[in-house]
């Protein structure tokens, strides 16, 4: 199959003089052409890289969850000696050394050797996995660089192209490469769909999978084989130093958005494809920028956005949850304090009785401003009704909620006194810290304990004097 290669107008912008060190900004026309994928060459490169990124994101999810992320790094570095050796052999055999498939085959062989070396070191020495990875990664890469020196010195064939495997040069992609990437991505996606539940079980609980009779070793080998294939296929576009980024970053970013494996894996594929596609386009616009670096930087941006805005475990989502929790704590403090003021006055607790703000201020260490803010919020939630400037009363719903809270608080206090031998004078503070996070299940257990002690389901009396509350 001979690739039909028709260089578009922008192909000239991809070739540049080696002495030209200035960054050339793309013209609006070039920008449009890249964005609309109007040049055959750009289209090929962007779509090829995008497909690669999607497949890498997908398989990366499983690698990440199998806690093998760094093995991919050792593996990609271990391809270099194989690539250079394959080049040397092919030159010695009279070839040009440009046959991509030969080079990638060589890379795959040393990559597998590298993984085997890690496994053997771990198995037969006392060196731990992280050190084994470090040793293999650096030794194989060092060997590769040394061989590269030899290849360049002999000067035969075209050894200059070899360096593009280190940093990545997506622009050199031809139709045959893109077809190869497409075929690999399709195969990997199919295998992941077919073996989805098997790989899920392997990553979650290997021992259980083994006990159930799943061939865990073979499944692990299939996973590793897919990683080797993706890595080797991606070498040309992303480069061996940075290909690990396409495996890890999209998967790690996707984890911020979902708590289920299937959506996470699909999103990782999407984010991987997006990063790779956008990165490749940028490298087409700025021909001096290696495509691998561009892709990683875009992926890093995607990761950053996910880390902050991720729906299920992003920083913002967590801050919001904490904010709502604090609001809830403040509201519960106010309601309980109001109830306890009424309770201590031996007045019948009703939603008609006014609670003086001064009494509330004495009960907790809150500033007048903070207290007024809590009252205003609780008023907004229709739990309390302000009565003038210096008093507040419950709404009917607020009183119900307050009764529930006080009951929980005191049940917990009783539990601490009877089961944990904590002095009654200390339980208030302890209960204060824990009452807001009592789950329905825990409360049910508390109720059960209280019922066993033949306590009627009412609000128990406070086991300590109210008003001498130690500030939380």
């Amino acid at each position, binding site marked *: 199959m001979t690739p039909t290669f028709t260089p578009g107008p922008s192909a000239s912008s991809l070739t540049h003089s080696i002495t030209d060190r200035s960054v050339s900004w793309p013209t609006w026309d070039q920008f449009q052409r890249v964005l609309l994928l109007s040049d055959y060459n750009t289209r090929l490169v962007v779509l090829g890289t995008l497909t690669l990124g999607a497949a890498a994101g997908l398989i990366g999810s499983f690698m990440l*969850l199998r*806690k093998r992320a760094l093995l991919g790094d050792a593996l990609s570095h271990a391809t270099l000696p194989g690539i250079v050796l394959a080049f040397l052999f092919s030159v010695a055999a009279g070839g040009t050394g440009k046959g991509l498939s030969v080079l990638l085959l060589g890379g795959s062989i040393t990559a597998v050797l590298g993984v085997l070396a890690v496994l053997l070191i771990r198995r037969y020495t006392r060196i731990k996995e992280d050190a084994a990875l470090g040793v293999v990664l650096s030794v194989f890469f060092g060997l590769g660089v040394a061989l590269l020196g030899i290849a360049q010195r002999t000067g035969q064939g075209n050894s200059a192209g070899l360096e593009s495997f280190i940093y990545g040069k997506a622009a050199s992609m031809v139709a045959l490469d893109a077809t190869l990437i497409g075929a690999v991505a399709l195969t990997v996606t199919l295998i992941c769909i*077919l*073996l*989805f*539940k*098997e790989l*899920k*079980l392997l*990553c*979650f*609980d290997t*021992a*259980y999978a*083994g*006990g*159930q*009779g*799943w061939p865990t070793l073979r499944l692990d080998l299939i996973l590793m084989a897919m990683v080797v294939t993706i890595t080797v296929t991606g070498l040309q576009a992303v480069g061996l130093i940075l290909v690990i980024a396409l495996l890890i970053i999209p998967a790690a970013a996707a*984890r911020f958005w*979902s*708590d*289920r*494996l299937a959506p*996470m894996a699909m999103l990782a594929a999407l984010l991987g494809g997006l990063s790779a596609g956008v990165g490749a386009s940028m490298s087409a616009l700025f021909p001096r920028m290696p495509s691998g670096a561009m892709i990683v930087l875009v992926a890093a941006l995607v990761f950053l956005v996910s880390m902050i805005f991720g729906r*299920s475990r992003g920083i913002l989502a967590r801050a919001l949850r904490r904010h709502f929790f604090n609001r809830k704590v403040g509201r519960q403090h106010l309601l309980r304090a109001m109830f306890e003021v009424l309770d201590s006055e031996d007045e019948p607790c009703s939603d008609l009785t006014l609670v003086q703000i001064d009494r509330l201020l004495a009960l907790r260490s809150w500033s007048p401003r903070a207290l007024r803010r809590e009252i205003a919020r609780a008023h907004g939630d229709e739990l309390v009704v302000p009565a003038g400037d210096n008093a507040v009363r419950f709404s009917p719903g607020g009183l119900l909620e307050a009764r529930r809270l006080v009951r929980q608080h005191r049940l917990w206090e009783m539990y601490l006194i009877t089961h944990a031998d904590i002095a009654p004078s200390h339980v208030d503070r302890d209960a204060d810290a824990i009452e807001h996070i009592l*789950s329905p*299940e825990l409360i049910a*257990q508390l109720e059960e304990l209280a019922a066993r002690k033949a306590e009627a389901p009412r609000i128990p009396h406070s086991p300590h004097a109210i008003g001498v509350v130690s500030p939380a």
Partner: protein
Amino acid sequence: MTVAYDRKPVLWDIDLDIPAGQLVGIVGPNGAGKSTLIKAVMDLVPTASGRVRVFGKPFKQSRSRVGYVPQRESVDWDFPVDALDVVAMGLYRKVGWFLPVRAVHRKQAMAALDKVGIAELAHRQISQLSGGQQQRVFLARALVQDADLYLMDEPFAAVDAATERAIVTVLRELRSRGKTVLVVHHDLQTVPEYFDHVILINMRIVAHGPTPEVFTKENLHRTYGGKLTLLSQAAEALMREERGL
């Protein structure tokens, strides 16, 4: 049977015949080889010598009749799955290679979750479950398999009272249906209450038999009291020798 980890023997000359249809407790100090015994039954650790037969056949042939509850700490609970997903894993063998979990399997998994009392938590991500609830998810995963022999590794470790009661109820129900349950257990106080049969173990079988006969002060002293210093020293020496250190 002798079991060795990394060529260091942890169980010596185990010769056991476990009666069917009973609740069996495996009791012994830390490092006595309790978990290893269970793993050896399932071929998860290589046995240096000897053989295991489950229902008169090698384990490989009766695998589908064996349900396993691993230690809770053995997995990463931050994994992106919910409780129902984990329980459904017990059905993967029945679902078969390549096929996805179907509605009928989800229904079975749901029923198992209900049996351990946490059906309402089915769609919660597993890291948001309490320790006791996580343990119950593991138990449900074994139950859904409808096995005849259950191997449970410390199901009572660090669980709340409600979970402990739920597990005991499930165990008794299993026994009433003629199932055999092997439980690695560490709370000596509850042994006579929970188990019909007990295996006292400390790198070798100290005693085994019906609980009233075997669970005696003297046997316990032999299990926990005298440390088998010489045996473990010999094991370590053997390992160093093998590794050429």
